[in-house]
């Protein structure tokens, strides 16, 4: 599998996600935001976490309109895989690739802690290495992760099974206490209509080593790599 990790001014988790992708067996190239094309043969585009353009205007607003995003939109329209993590999720919402928006956390605090997520479905390119309804132990670090959408969008996401992950407790129970940023329906991540674009606030790329306390994040990258035949 060939991955392209897009780097914007202010991205800061690109190194972590490159490491997670390589560990899972992907070829990885970093791509600067001013490029108009993705590297030939790109299977997966990753928009990493960070604070692109210093979160000026709205989180992800300026990056969402960067030159490279036209190529990312074209890649997604062809059915190519796109993963946006944290600021990457905000960029996906701002660029129109995913519906809704990430608002300021309801308690106005930047939250940074370990977080369990319920895997809502394990039949996508992103989650097949997980078990249905599994509670995976990853982490969150954001000030604007409060997922908000209008009633109809929310109904559509729920009705069509497009919610990827929800904030939950260690037993997989989706509780109000586990939803620390105030997201509607405890949404931590969503898919596009044809399940090839995933945006999520939590950081699976930071829980891939026992050394740092857990490996539950690996499944996401292993799922992606296993979707592609090994290069000869």
């Amino acid at each position: 599998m060939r991955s392209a990790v897009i780097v914007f001014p202010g991205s800061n988790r690109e190194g972590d996600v490159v490491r997670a992708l390589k560990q899972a067996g992907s070829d990885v190239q970093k791509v600067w935001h001013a490029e108009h094309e993705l590297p030939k043969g790109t299977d997966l585009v990753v928009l990493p976490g960070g604070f692109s353009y210093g979160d000026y205007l709205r989180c992800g607003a300026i990056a969402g309109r960067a030159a490279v995003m036209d190529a990312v939109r074209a890649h997604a329209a062809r059915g190519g895989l796109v993963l946006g993590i944290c600021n990457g999720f905000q960029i996906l919402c701002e660029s129109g690739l995913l519906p809704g928006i990430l608002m300021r956390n309801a308690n106005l605090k930047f939250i940074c802690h370990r977080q369990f997520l319920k895997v809502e479905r394990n039949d996508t390119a992103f989650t097949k290495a997980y078990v249905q309804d599994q509670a995976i132990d990853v982490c969150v670090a954001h000030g604007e992760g409060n997922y908000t959408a209008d009633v109809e969008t929310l109904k559509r996401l729920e009705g069509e099974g497009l919610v990827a992950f929800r904030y939950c407790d260690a037993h997989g129970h989706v509780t109000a206490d586990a939803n620390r940023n105030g997201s509607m329906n405890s949404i931590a991540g969503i898919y596009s209509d044809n399940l090839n674009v995933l945006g999520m606030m939590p950081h699976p790329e930071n829980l891939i080593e026992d050394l740092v306390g857990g490996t539950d994040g690996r499944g996401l990258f292993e799922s992606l790599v296993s979707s592609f035949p090994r290069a000869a």
Partner: protein
Amino acid sequence: MKARVTVTLKNGVLDPQGKAIEGALKSLGVDGIAGVRQGKVFDIELETADKVQAETSLKAACEKLLANTVIENYRVELI
């Protein structure tokens, strides 16, 4: 020509920052505040002197970048 663009949250969109400011005003003893909603103001200098052309540019600026119309409304004033 100059313009002022005001971007505000749509009715019904929760505004935790506005709420926090409202709370701060209360704790400062400022009376008579029933509610606060926070928005943004952009003062924009235009190259053109043509009103219609200016309005077209400003509408494009708002729709493409300045406002996220999922949650925000915008208002354009030429000054």
